[in-house]
Every structure is written in C-alpha cells, then in structure tokens.
C-alpha cells in the first residue's frame, strides 16, 4: 500500500493554550487501510483526526506537514467525517434527505432530484429501515443509532476516498456500537475506502483495524499491525492499556460469587 498521506512532525496548539495538544507526530496513512487511532482523554487523538480533516478551529497553531499523494483534499468531498454525537452533527430543522443530499449536491454538482436519489441510495446503503419515508423525517424522530447511520450516509454521499470517524460509537449503547462498527467496516470494504477510526477502546479497534496508532499526552507512543501490537506491545503504556481492558472473561472485583 502506498501512503495516502505522509504526516511529518505534526504539532497543534490551540489558541490560548501553552501546552501542545499534539506534538512530533510522524505517521503515514496508507491507502485502503483501516487505521485505529487509540488514546484516552487528552491524548490528542481527536485533534489528530481534525488536523487530518482540516477541521481544526480558527487560531489553532499547526506546525509540520501533511503531504497528500493525490493533492490537497477538500473536506466533505475527499474526506468524510463522522463525529461522536450525531445529534450535534445533524441540523435539527433539515430533513434527513436534505442533509444527506447536501454534500452530494455541492460536491458532485447534482440537481435537486439527483441529490434526493443519491440520498435515498445512501440511506439504503446504511440500512435505514424504510429509507423513502426516512428522507422526509427529521433527526429527532430517529434513535441515536439511526441518527449515526444518517450522519455516516451524509459523510459518504460525495464518495470520499477517506472516512474519518471520531469516536462514532461513544455516545451510543454497546449493542448499537456493534452495529455501527459492522456498518463502517462493510461500507469501507465495499467502497475501497481508507478508514481512520478514533477510539478510546483498544478492544473495539482490535476487532477490525489493520493497524493501530497509540496516542498519549499528544504524542504517538506506538504504531504497528494490530495483531503485532496486541501480542507484543513495545511501549509500557500500550501494555497497560491492554492490561486494563475488562471484558466478560476478566475476574470480577467482588469477592463472593453471590448471596
């Protein structure tokens, strides 16, 4: 795989802050890969996602370079972005159809009617039940999981080659999380897209990412093939993250089995 984007010595400092949110990041995003950016609060993982997408707020100081093999990408056209909270990324007063069509109309030059057809096609692809009806629904009429499906449809409507998902399941319950991850995985495979998936959950990432990059305190701690990093973490921090994972096979903290 060739590098879609070569990131060198990337550093970001938000306005009014003395500490860098991100520093000395060297990382290649490979075309067609599924890369998980993993970190806890304050690790800089979301800043990284925003820097990559060109979505940093005004006044953020950026140093270093992002070299794109296919030229400077346009947000919305070449890069789709899915946020943590679908309620915040969807406009409450626009219909689902209008917002899914918006990116496609703007970037692909579609007519109103073509835009609606594209929105319908996208709602089908993200498995919204009764997509023709959903076109005319408003965000508040859908569940959180369905809203995130709509946000994904909107992010992909203009056929971007890169999808960046910033904690797309953290505001959802775990049953819905499984469905959304499966959906992203399916769409990325089908479309031959590159996926950058930001998460705090190393176990979630281990289920589908080709590569993982572990962030801590604004620095890139470790990167490598998912299986390799999980089996043989090089950094003590990665090992600690793995050790603190809790699932149903982890011994309980209570001492008695029941009463």
């Amino acid at each position, binding site marked *: 795989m060739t590098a879609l984007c070569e990131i060198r010595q990337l550093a970001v400092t938000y306005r009014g802050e003395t500490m860098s949110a991100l520093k000395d990041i060297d990382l290649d995003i490979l075309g067609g890969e599924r890369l998980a950016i993993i970190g*806890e609060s304050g690790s800089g993982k979301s800043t990284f996602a925003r820097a990559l997408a060109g979505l940093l707020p005004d006044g953020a100081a950026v140093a270093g370079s992002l070299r794109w093999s296919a030229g400077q990408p346009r947000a919305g056209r070449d890069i789709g972005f899915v946020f943590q909270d679908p309620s915040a990324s969807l406009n409450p007063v626009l219909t689902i159809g209008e917002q899914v069509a918006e990116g496609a109309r703007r970037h692909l030059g579609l007519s109103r009617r073509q835009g609606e057809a594209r929105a319908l096609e996208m709602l089908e692809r993200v498995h919204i039940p009764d997509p023709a009806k959903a076109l005319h629904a408003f965000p508040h009429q859908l569940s959180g999981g369905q809203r995130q499906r709509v946000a994904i449809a909107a992010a992909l409507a203009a056929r971007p080659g890169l999808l960046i998902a910033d904690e797309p399941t953290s505001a959802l319950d775990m049953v819905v999380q499984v469905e959304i991850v499966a959906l992203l995985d399916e769409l990325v495979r089908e479309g031959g897209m590159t996926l950058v998936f930001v998460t705090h959950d190393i176990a979630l990432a281990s289920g589908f990412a080709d590569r993982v990059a572990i962030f801590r305190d604004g620095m890139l701690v470790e990167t490598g093939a998912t299986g390799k990093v999980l089996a043989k973490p090089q950094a003590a921090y990665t090992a600690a993250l793995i050790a603190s994972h809790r699932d149903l096979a982890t011994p*309980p903290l209570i001492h008695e089995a029941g009463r």
Partner: protein
Amino acid sequence: MTLLDVKNLDKRYASGGRTVTALDGVSLTLSAGETLGLAGASGSGKSTLARLLTRLVPADAGTVRFGGEDWLALSGGELRRRRARMQMVFQDVLGAFNPRATVGSVIEDPLRIHDIVPKAGRGREVAALLDRVGLPAAYAARSIRDVSGGQRQRIAIARAIATRPAMIVLDEAVSALDVSLREKVLELLVALQEESGIAYLFVSHDLAVLAAVSHRIAVMDAGRIVESGPAAEVIGNPQSPAARALVGAVPRLIGQEDRNAV
C-alpha cells in the same frame, strides 16, 4: 435482609402525541450490602427506573418499599430527610454543578442539609470522606472545575456516601471515564461496599462493568425485566435476546494470545 422491594412499577411518557411505555410491570429486590446490575440498551427503561427510585420522576403505578417504608408515599420534609438513605451517582453529575463550587462545598452540602455532623466537625468529615475515596484533603479547596473526570466522579461518590446511605443508585457512573480510571473507581465502590455494607443498584449498558461488581444482574428490554439471576449465570448463559445481544456486544481483545481465550 431485603432493603428494597419494587413491585409492578409502570411509567408512561407522552412523546410527540404518542404514549411511550418506559416501565411496564417492573419488579425487583435488593438486599443490604448487595449489588444488582441493571443492564439494557438505550431506551430499555433502565435510567427511568433509576430516576423513579431516586424520586426524580413519579411512578404511574406500582409500589416501592425501601427500608421497610412505603418509599413512594414519602413527601416534603419527610422525603428530604429519608433521601439521605438512598443516594445517587450519575454520569458526570458534578459537571452540571456551579463551576465556582469547591470540592469541599460539594461534599459538605449533604452533611449540612442532613445535619450529619455538627458545623465544627464538618471540615474534618470532608477530609475523612476525601480520604475514603482516595483523594488528598487539600483537594477540598479546589474548584470543581479544576479536577479531572475521574477525580470528579470520586468526589460525587464522596458526596453520596457523606450521608451514610444504605443504598446508592449508580447510573452509568463510570461510562465517561478512561479505562484505567474506570477500574479504580470500580475498585473504590467495591471497597466501600465491603467496609460499610452499602447496597448498589448499578445501571449500565456495559455488561463488562456490571460483571465486575454485580452479585446479580437484571436485563431490561422495552420497559420490562426480561431476565435476572446471579451475575455469572446471566453472563455465562443468557436466555433472552436482549441479554444475548448485551453479552455479544462486549468487545474482546483480538490478536492477543491471551488471558481471555475461550
């Protein structure tokens, strides 16, 4: 000893011209010193139940006996006094506090309101409570805004145990925390239970969290409890589709030759 006895709770909401049934004949019991994990997806009714038990929303039908009393019949000053016995810790509950509040004032409030310790002793009690949740006494002077999420949740726990409750309702109390902090807060809750015999009703969509701390687990779906039993049984052999979905949804570390191998 049964501390909490809930029978046939119903709760409906009007939403957009429709009636939504949030709770439909919910019954459960909780013993002193026990943790009941209440699992369910979004919209299953588990948070409604938490809010109803803490008397934040009224029930439409059903009974709740808590400590032998008719809990839903209490009102006014009587309810305020009894609230000391059933506390709550919700997800980042202190995030909604006045940002000018200090850690000390947040913990001292319930001591004053419920007259737990005389005024002269409150500073010492605040220090003791901070110590019990693993924070230095000097934190009392800090602004609630200047502490991390994990510390804030410890402070919420300190505030909850200040009134020496028999029971705490925890609703997604660790969901917003990073994994390393989450483990420490769970350990703290278990230690406090072992010391003081507090009962917990622990509400979460994360079965891995409930598995860590629960003696029994009840699974909710569409306003009903569809399955309940000893934690190990519900997790090891889930019967209902809702319980199976929750078990299947817990991410496992893949690619590690591991302690979690099946």
